[in-house]
């Protein structure tokens, strides 16, 4: 019988939940350096998905590596089987929709499958200028699954309608996706409270599972749009003892996945602490 971990953080729960989305043989696009997502993919690769292909920076199909804050790019590059430019990446993966997953995060997400990484407020006179969407506006439509992870599930993030549609899933239902030349797959968001997903254009996001200790009511209150709330909602599968041990000892010994969950000032202190450990690991502290 599976032995679940007794002790895990919400970051670890999200990380493992994301890892479980990976299927063996998947082509996984890592994108920006987001420790939680990176840890998920590496965990999947060393457990149930050894035939998956990891893509990050210019590195293709690299060996899984121990996560650190500074070394992800160097490790991916050193462990790669192939190196390519962004255009070769497009020509080999993205334009054809050959990517299976790439977990994105965004400032706002809405009930239609739109995400906003551009601005809060009016486009030409914004209150907040966000980073922009990089390739997300194009590729979230193309990936088999559109995965998102949100460390802070609030009505400010999950809004009825995003201020600006930076990108959108565009084609949602399985039938429509096949017709448009894309593989079918859901929009699925993993948050600090629950897993919500949308599989049809006409239907709202549905609560798929609730994290241990979280109620449907809490999720509904923290979501700015209508949710389908099934009568019986399963609990999100907890991390196994093995998974938590792997994360802490092997995949992420510096604890980088907790970084996203630290508030403002604490974040810098936490980062300094990680960096101190990294220096120590090479004998410079």
């Amino acid at each position: 019988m599976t032995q679940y971990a007794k002790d895990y953080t919400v970051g670890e729960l999200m990380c493992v939940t994301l890892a479980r989305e990976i299927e063996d043989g998947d082509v996984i696009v890592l994108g920006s350096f987001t420790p939680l997502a990176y840890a998920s993919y590496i965990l999947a690769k060393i457990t149930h998905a050894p035939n998956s292909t990891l893509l990050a920076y210019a590195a293709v199909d690299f060996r899984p590596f121990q996560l650190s804050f500074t070394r992800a790019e160097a490790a991916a590059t050193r462990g790669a089987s192939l190196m390519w430019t962004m255009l070769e990446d497009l020509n080999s993966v993205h334009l054809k929709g050959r990517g299976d997953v790439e977990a994105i995060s965004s400032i706002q997400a809405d009930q239609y499958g739109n995400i906003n990484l551009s601005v809060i407020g009016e486009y030409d006179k914004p209150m907040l200028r966000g980073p922009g969407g990089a390739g997300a506006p194009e590729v979230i439509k193309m990936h088999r699954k559109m995965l998102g992870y949100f460390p802070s599930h609030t009505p400010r993030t999950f809004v009825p309608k995003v201020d600006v549609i930076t990108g959108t899933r565009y084609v949602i239902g399985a039938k429509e996706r096949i017709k448009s030349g894309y593989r079918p797959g859901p929009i699925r968001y993993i948050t600090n409270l629950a897993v919500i997903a949308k599989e049809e254009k006409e239907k709202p996001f549905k609560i798929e599972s609730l994290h241990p200790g979280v109620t449907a009511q809490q999720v509904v209150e923290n979501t700015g749009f209508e949710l389908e709330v099934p009568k019986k909602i399963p609990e999100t599968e907890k991390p196994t003892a093995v998974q938590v041990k792997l994360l802490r000892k092997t995949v992420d010994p510096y604890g980088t996945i907790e970084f996203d969950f630290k508030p403002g000032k604490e974040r810098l202190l936490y980062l300094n602490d990680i960096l101190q450990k990294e220096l120590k690991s090479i004998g410079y502290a």
Partner: protein
Amino acid sequence: MTIESKVGKLSDIKKIIKNGDKVAIGGSWLGSHPMAIIREIIRQKIKNLTAITVVGSIDIDLLIGAGCLSRLMFSFVSMEAFGLAPNFRRAIEKEGLPYDEITGLAVIIGLEAGGRNVPFLPYRGPFGSDLVKYRPEFYKEIKCPFTGEKLIAAAAIVPDVAIIHATRADHAGTVQIEGTSGTDVEMMRAARKRIVSVEEIVSTEEIMKYKEKTKIPKFQVDMVIEAPLGAHPCSCAPDYVFDPWHIMKYMQAASSPETFKQYLGEYVMKPEFEYLEAIGGMKQATILRRLAREVTFL
């Protein structure tokens, strides 16, 4: 007849980059941005540039903070885990810096089109994105003449100058990139003039020994500049990692125009080798290189 050398000094960049130019800037995320050239642009007070980046970070933020840009084309500008880019935010939120936010693939495909000498290339573009609506000069719907299918045409992008940072080059300008190449190769194909800074200039024999690492032929390069640690505080994989300590200092400094001005004086407005001393010299370089080597595979 003799072999032409394209080797120049940082101070020579003004022979190629002019006020008002559209400058494509290589690198991506916190990796391989041509920071030594960026600093030299600021030192030389080259102004009114339009910067073109796919995935920018401190390269763009520095240029904006130093007042070198009059326009920005980008798909992404962020200091990654360190936060949003402070000068970038301030310039757009408070000072109305004009910009074109173009989706990532449209920038890459636009550069590809520029390099191919076609005014556009079609793809299954960002249908439904508001960015398409906001910048119609970069996107048009087009029908396939064979199938009637609806596609998006991305407009060609032709920079006046491309600047990139790479691992090594020979005197003739043959360039090798070992790590993250971003859209550097595509920018070099599309641009009218090109400058490459490299970690080291080597002999042509050395280039031929590992010819598979060569990414740019000499006829696509106008000037090569040796600039060791020339991507600092960004990484140049797999040689050295980005400098998180310096970037934290930068984030602090860039939090207000006043402290950012101090930063420029303290770090940028001095010869490049003095910059390298200011950021920690040989010891810091050794740490950043060591971190890049000590990776653990599982």
